């Protein structure tokens, strides 16, 4: 195994043309690989430094070696030393070389025009070792068919063969090797990849284990000859040395860049035979059925009939051409058929074409059978799919000239309506003045916005108002809390000394009356409250109880009540409140 140095190894000179001095243009050629094998690409870099202008180089032709440009890179650097600024520009042109044979390869001097001067690299010698890439990695394309026809759809299988790398006496895994593959161009092969392990006899006769990766494509050959896929190319970074990282995962410390184009099996593409080819053959290859539908089936002369032509079969539907209706003599005898090619639509395993035809005569009774000739590759014969004739009804129609209209005027009123339709399919004018002069303005989005936005605002206003009313406003709220407030105050009075409790009870009762009847509390103190009750209630017992409670409260205020009287007085006041609540006032 050969180690690949992590950086690029300078194999050969920086062949400097002319004296090297700061600020003077320089040209060099590097071979950026150490081990070079026949059939494996390696990279050569042509570097130009300290230049103002530089023409693109033309790499010389090398016998026995293919050269491919990989493009160019450019970088600039600026140095400031002791206050002096120096800039340099470097441009690198890379080329990929692949030597076909082992031996010494000489890269001749490369001339580049730099800053108006022709600079030249010295020749470089490269030792090309015999290649074994074809044993390690190769690609094959196979098919079940040895001979196919132009336009025939076949299934091709592309197999990638990779010889597994052995690590410590064991083959490295198939998944790892698959991860090293590089797809450069897979052409039409887009199918799922299936991995397997197979054994195969090598060129030296020994049996070798390979990992295989298979994919497939439906392929339609478009020209006769040997099948080839020169554009397909795959690569692999084939590890030559492996190490394990701290997690135990393998990683390559050296590898070879291998590339392969597919070897295509013996598959010959034949042209379609000229013998027996129908005149209206449009290029369909496969086996097909034809179903035709028409709509409408009752028309007048000149009116369109839509033909829906459905083709089912095993041929390549995407590229399947439609039938050449314009060349169908039966159809063209009585129908006007557009000359343009049909554009079909693939629906599942069918391709559907539509075409409008127009009957030219009223004596037509059917759309004749349509033919769809195709070439059957299995039988090697031209066959014709034929549709069933479709019965139709064609009635005469006048031409749309103004002269025909006069006939309509002459038609008697009692003539059947159908006759009028036959004469002219256009319905008459609107003659009502009010309808014709009525004006409809354009729809105003602003008005519509008003109509849709104002009602919810009105609803919100009404809803808010009703909500306010339901909660009763200040008066109702005051009335609602009158009893609760009075009872709370009476409960608080129980905790007070008898002198204070009497005043608190009288105040609670006055407060109750004031809030219940939405009156100033000051008007409900003492006898005024009794007068008010006399006015508003018809229950003398209640007034009497109220008066009694007020008197006892007054007595308690002046110290004429015992300690236990407060509770009794509060209870009586509560009873008065309850009684008054029951009254409908």
């Amino acid at each position, binding site marked *: 195994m050969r180690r690949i140095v992590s950086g690029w190894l300078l194999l050969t000179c920086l062949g400097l043309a002319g004296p090297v001095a700061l600020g003077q243009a320089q040209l060099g050629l590097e071979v950026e690989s150490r081990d070079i094998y026949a059939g494996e690409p390696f990279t050569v870099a042509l570097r130009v430094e300290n230049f103002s202008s530089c023409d693109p180089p033309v790499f010389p032709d090398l016998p026995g070696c293919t050269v491919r440009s990989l493009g160019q890179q450019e970088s600039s650097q600026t140095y400031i030393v002791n206050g002096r600024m120096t800039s340099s520009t470097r441009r690198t042109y890379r080329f990929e070389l692949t030597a076909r044979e082992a031996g010494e390869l000489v890269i001749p001097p490369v001339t580049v025009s730099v800053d108006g001067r022709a600079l030249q690299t010295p020749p470089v010698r490269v030792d090309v070792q015999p290649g074994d890439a074809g044993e390690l990695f190769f690609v094959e394309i196979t098919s079940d068919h040895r001979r196919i026809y132009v336009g025939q759809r076949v299934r091709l299988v592309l197999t990638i063969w990779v010889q597994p790398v052995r690590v410590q006496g064991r083959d490295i895994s198939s998944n790892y090797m698959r991860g090293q593959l590089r797809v450069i161009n897979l052409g039409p092969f887009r199918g799922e990849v299936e991995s397997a392990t197979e054994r195969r006899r090598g060129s030296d006769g020994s049996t070798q284990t390979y990992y295989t990766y298979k994919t497939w494509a439906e392929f339609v050959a478009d020209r006769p000859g040997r099948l080839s896929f020169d554009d397909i190319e795959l690569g692999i970074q084939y590890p030559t040395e492996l190490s394990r990282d701290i997690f135990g995962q393998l990683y390559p410390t050296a590898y070879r860049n291998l590339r392969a184009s597919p070897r295509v099996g013996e598959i010959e593409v034949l042209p379609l035979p000229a013998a027996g080819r129908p005149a209206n053959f449009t290029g369909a290859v496969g086996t097909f059925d034809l179903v035709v539908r028409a709509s409408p089936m009752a028309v007048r002369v000149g009116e369109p009939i839509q033909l829906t032509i459905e083709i089912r079969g095993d041929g390549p539907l995407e590229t399947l051409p439609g039938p050449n209706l314009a060349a169908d003599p039966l159809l063209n005898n009585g129908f006007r058929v557009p000359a343009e090619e049909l554009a079909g639509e693939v629906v599942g395993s069918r391709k559907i074409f539509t075409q409008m035809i127009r009957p030219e005569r009223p004596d037509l009774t059917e759309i004749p059978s349509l033919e769809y000739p195709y070439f059957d590759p299995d039988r090697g014969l031209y066959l014709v799919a034929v549709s069933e004739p479709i019965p139709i009804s064609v009635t005469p129609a006048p031409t749309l000239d103004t*002269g025909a209209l006069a006939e309509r005027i002459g038609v008697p009123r009692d003539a059947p309506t159908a006759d009028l339709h036959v004469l002219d399919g256009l*319905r008459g004018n609107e003659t009502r003045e009010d309808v014709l002069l009525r004006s409809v303005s354009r729809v105003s989005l602003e008005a519509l916005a008003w*109509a849709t936005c104002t009602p919810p605002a009105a609803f919100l206003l009404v809803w808010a108002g009703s909500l306010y009313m339901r909660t009763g406003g200040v008066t109702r709220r005051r009335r609602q809390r009158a009893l609760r407030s009075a009872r709370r105050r009476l409960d608080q009075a129980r905790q007070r000394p008898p002198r204070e409790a009497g005043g608190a009870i009288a105040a609670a009762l006055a407060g109750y009356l004031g809030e219940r009847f939405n009156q100033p509390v000051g008007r409900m103190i003492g006898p005024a409250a009794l007068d008010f009750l006399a006015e508003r209630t018809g229950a003398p017992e209640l007034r009497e109880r109220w008066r009694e409670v007020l008197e006892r409260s007054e007595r308690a205020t002046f110290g004429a009540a015992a300690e236990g009287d407060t509770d009794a007085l509060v209870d009586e006041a509560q009873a008065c409140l309850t009684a008054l609540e029951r009254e409908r006032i």
Partner: protein
Amino acid sequence: MTPRVLTAALVLAGVAAGLAFPLTARAAGIPPERQREILRRGLDAFDEAVRVAQQRAAEAEELYREARNAFAALRDAGVRNAALEYNLGNTHFRLGDLGRAILHYRRAERLEPSNERVRENLEYARRQVEPLIEPAGQARLWRDLAFVHYRTSMHGRAWAAGGLTILGWLLLIVRLRWPARSLAVAGVIGVLLGLSLAGSVAWQTREEGQWPPAVVVGEPVVLRLGWGEGSDPALKQPLGPGVELWVLHERGGWVEVRLPNNQTGWLPAVAVERV
């Protein structure tokens, strides 16, 4: 009914009346008597053209032109209704101008989609168009599903939207006073239907502003892949007068259009007229 509910109802009725004004009348530019005179002249010319068509075709054509000019004068004066557009379509059809016939039938259909005569003549005229372009399947399905949007006039939908919204909210307001479940359900349904129709109107306005429908008029014209006569044709067959399409955008005297089958391309701006 409480005074508040009554007030709200009056407010909503006022809104309805305010809405009705911009949705209905707009004064035409010429006096009504003069309008009637022009209309009679157009109708008479059309009838006379039909009468003399067989014997004196040139004279009939002249009379059709006179009828067309009369109808067009009314339209230019601000009279806008489906019947007038329909008559204009008929007149253009008689003059052999299939493109403008379809254009006016489309305008009539837009104003009154339920008008049977408009629909029949439009269908009849469409059958003469070459090539016949079938709408894409998806577009057809969508039109069937959203039939209210496509088969009712924008004007009618705007009216219904306003009316249903106001009625729905009115029911909801009444429901505040008499909390009946049926009122709430009817009100909510009314509001939702009204808002849906309002959305439909807004959508159509936006859609027509963005991609106005148009019709090919005049001579058959080649659909091209780019703007300018130097661009490659997009279709082998030229688009004849009457082909219906949508204008996507305009550039340098050319318009990019989309056909009913979703094919796009460019046409000279003078070859199409917006519906």
